[in-house]
């Protein structure tokens, strides 16, 4: 029986063998692997790209003080981007399951329609949730739009829920009981994390401070995006740091939401504000990449 980390090693190895860059997690808080620049920005434009990485993904509202066996404030996603999507992408994906010891002739696998949309990112795609013996183990998406931009090359995005997958393979009813590595359970490694962030997000986060932070990051992102438009040295303009500011806004918004601090009228407006920054960054990034290529040509 493979441990949590062995399963991760094997999946990374599998995708590395298929031409993926193995990245490390992004070091800014995100709600999903999709939001990392390695996905959100890399899927834009005409450059092929293949990357896989584990991304700890924070969903403040999903925190349960470590009490719920299946729900986590922060879970680990294995994110795979294949741009453009190869013709045999589903076969490759099924191969990855076999690589972690699932004999698909002895299991039931179904692809059930599930289309994905992230309004704050101006992104959507179509695809499936992949069901293994009735358990959703992967979200499979063909991206169509990102940052409000139609994608030139259609990437396939595979998002594995690693805790669930491991619980399934290790026959555990609670993610806290899965073996991270010999001698350590998931609980040993992550329980404090879940408990303390739940307490902070639901009870102690200071709402005025969070709003202040939101506005500071939003201001910085807006300032940079405005500067980019006027910049005469676009190729070296810091759009990646600009995008970090957008991610900060998104995470603070999620925290405020979990705290119950966003009123109805505010909510729609705040989503639109984050979306505006994300779309602005995506467009600037695409512009910067294209300009860079033209300069090189």
């Amino acid at each position, binding site marked *: 029986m493979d441990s949590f980390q062995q399963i991760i090693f094997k999946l990374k190895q599998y995708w590395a063998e298929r031409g993926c860059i193995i990245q490390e997690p992004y070091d800014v808080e995100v709600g999903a692997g999709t939001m990392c620049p390695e996905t959100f920005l890399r899927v834009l434009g005409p450059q092929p790209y293949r990357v896989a990485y584990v991304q700890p993904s924070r969903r403040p509202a999903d925190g349960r003080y470590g009490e719920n066996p299946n729900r986590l404030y922060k879970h680990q996603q294995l994110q795979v981007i294949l741009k*453009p999507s190869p013709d045999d992408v589903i076969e490759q994906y099924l191969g990855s399951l076999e690589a972690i010891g699932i004999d698909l002739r002895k299991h039931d696998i*179904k692809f059930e*329609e599930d289309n994905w949309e992230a309004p704050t990112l101006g992104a959507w795609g179509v695809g499936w949730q992949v069901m293994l013996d009735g358990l959703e183990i992967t979200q499979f998406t063909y991206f169509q739009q990102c940052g409000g931009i139609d994608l030139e090359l259609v990437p396939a995005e595979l998002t594995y829920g690693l805790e669930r997958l491991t619980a399934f393979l290790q026959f555990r009813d609670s993610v806290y009981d899965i073996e991270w590595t010999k001698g350590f359970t998931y609980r040993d490694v992550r329980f404090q994390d879940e408990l303390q962030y739940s307490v902070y997000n639901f009870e102690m986060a200071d709402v005025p401070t969070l709003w202040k932070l939101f506005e500071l990051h939003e201001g910085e992102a807006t300032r940079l995006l405005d500067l980019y438009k006027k910049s005469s040295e676009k190729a070296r303009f810091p759009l990646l740091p600009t995008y970090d500011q957008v991610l900060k806004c998104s995470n603070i918004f999620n925290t405020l939401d979990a705290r119950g601090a966003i009123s109805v009228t505010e909510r729609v407006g705040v989503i639109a504000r984050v979306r505006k920054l994300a779309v602005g960054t995506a467009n600037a990034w695409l512009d910067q990449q294209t300009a860079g290529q033209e300069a090189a040509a």
Partner: protein
Amino acid sequence: MSVPFLLEIGTEEIPDWMIPGALESLRSLAVAAVPGLGEVTMDATPRRLVMRATNVPEKQADQEELVQGPAKAAPPKAVEGFARKLGVKVENLQVQSTGKGEYYTFLRKIEGRATKDILAEALPGVIPKIYFPKTMYWTGKSGPRFIRPIRWIVALLGSEVVPFEIAGVKSGKTSAGHRRLGSSEIGINIKDYELQLRSNYVILSAAERRQKIEQGIADLGVKIKPDPALLETLVYLTEYPTPIAGSFDESFLELPEEVRTTVMRHHQRYFTAEGTHFVAVMNTSEDPEALVRLGNERVLRARFNDARFFWQTDQKKKLADRVEDLKLVTFQAKLGSYYEKAERTVGIVKELGGDTAAERAARLAKCDLTTELVKEFTELQGVVGGLYAKVQGEPAEVWQAIYDHYKPVSMEDAIPRTRTGQIVALADKLDTLRECFRIGMMPSGSKDPFALRRAAQGVVKILAEGEVSAPVPSDDFFEDRVRFYFRDVRGYQYDEVNAAMAAGWSDMKDLAARLERLKNIRPTPDFEPLAASFKRIKNILRQAEYTGGDAVRPELLEAGPEKDLYDESQRIAGQQIEAGIAALRPKVDLFFDKVLVNAQDPQVRRNRLAMLHNLLAEFKTFADFSEIVTSSS
């Protein structure tokens, strides 16, 4: 020579619910584009759309066309030119005389084209046009759109490949079997096609898959709750369906049945069975090591544990204490929160004559939107609120009204069981409709994001079948819903509905009663002739531009048919329609037979129009019989 034809479009997994529609679309597009295709049969699995025909002519029929050239008297150069253009010699031309003189002609033979060529030309146009509610592109931004990527195409006419290409995929004779049990490359021989698929664990026929599921369940010896919609989903979610039985721990029986069923049916696509059993349908042939069963049982246990956890957590805060929390739940961006919606709904409840129980239910009805259980199982909104209200000691009147207030969710669904529930459901829907219309969110075409049509349909159904009396809002939108309800749900003829609605439609129960009576008198022998006469009367009045306002002056009436008709109409005034029809009909017939409405004397004429107008008016509160379509009209 006739040969069989096979088209198999191999794709990645198509959403189950789109498949039957896609097949119909493919059928009609192909039949229109390819002459001589004849009868086609359509089949599909999640990974293939298949069209087959048995008797397709290899060649289209030859045709002849008479081409007219220059006149016989034309200079030889012109005649030679005509022959050259056709590629024949002058001596092959004929001379034919027409009305305008003699002309050179030529009977050109057009050889029928090979059907293979026609198919090869037509199919690349047909396939991308197949209708799907949502499509994607995958080869690049300007590439073709389809429901999911096309991965292979088998196109065979007899033993020959019909050559074409879509999205970089060349048609050929190679298909693919079940993803894990079958071969990924099957060289298709058209006459063995179905058999070849079957030996690769693909059952092509939906009917056969359905039968295999049903038989499989019967063989398991488990008694399931019949669920045709779920069965249909599973038929199109699998290529080789095999049912297995599983069970869950008895302790979960303490969860409300509604919650258990939702988890099993909607989230896991299991059939629910008696006691602690369920049936899952696999997309594979067997489960020899019981891995699939154990896996599904484990998933269900986790789901049930979640639900139990949510149920217990939610109990820590009563519904009544969640009213304030609704301020944070958006109803609609421009319409504010559910808190405000609940306030408005309470107001409407009062207008509808609801008591304090109805008001309380309306105030609490949306509170379950703040519970964990509803966040997890949104389809249980209302039901969960009702269940919580019940365990939290709300009276039956209140909790049942909360439980039922989204009802009817479809025209097949029942209306709320109590009058209180009906009032709350009406108020909730009326508020949604009023507010959305106020900000101009009218449904248009297929766009109806707030399901306003369904809400209005629900209002009509509750008012027609329930215990609440209130007028239906009088606008075109509701008029359409009322018409739909009585025609498509209650099954009245469209002209009966038109006739009865022409006499008013604000009171649903009155309209329902009149329609029933109209339906009953319609087959009586005197009714349709009378209706035809009424149509004639209406036309006469319209042509005369007569709109009423005069009292009939009996002294101007002619003795005989006219006077008789007048007397009869006086006699039946105020009586049951049913009682008057038989006697009235011969009087009307005779009147039209013997009396000319357009009399010379304008006074007499006007008096006749007044009498006819009054006769129509007599029935005006019941139905406009002139709307009835009669065999003579």
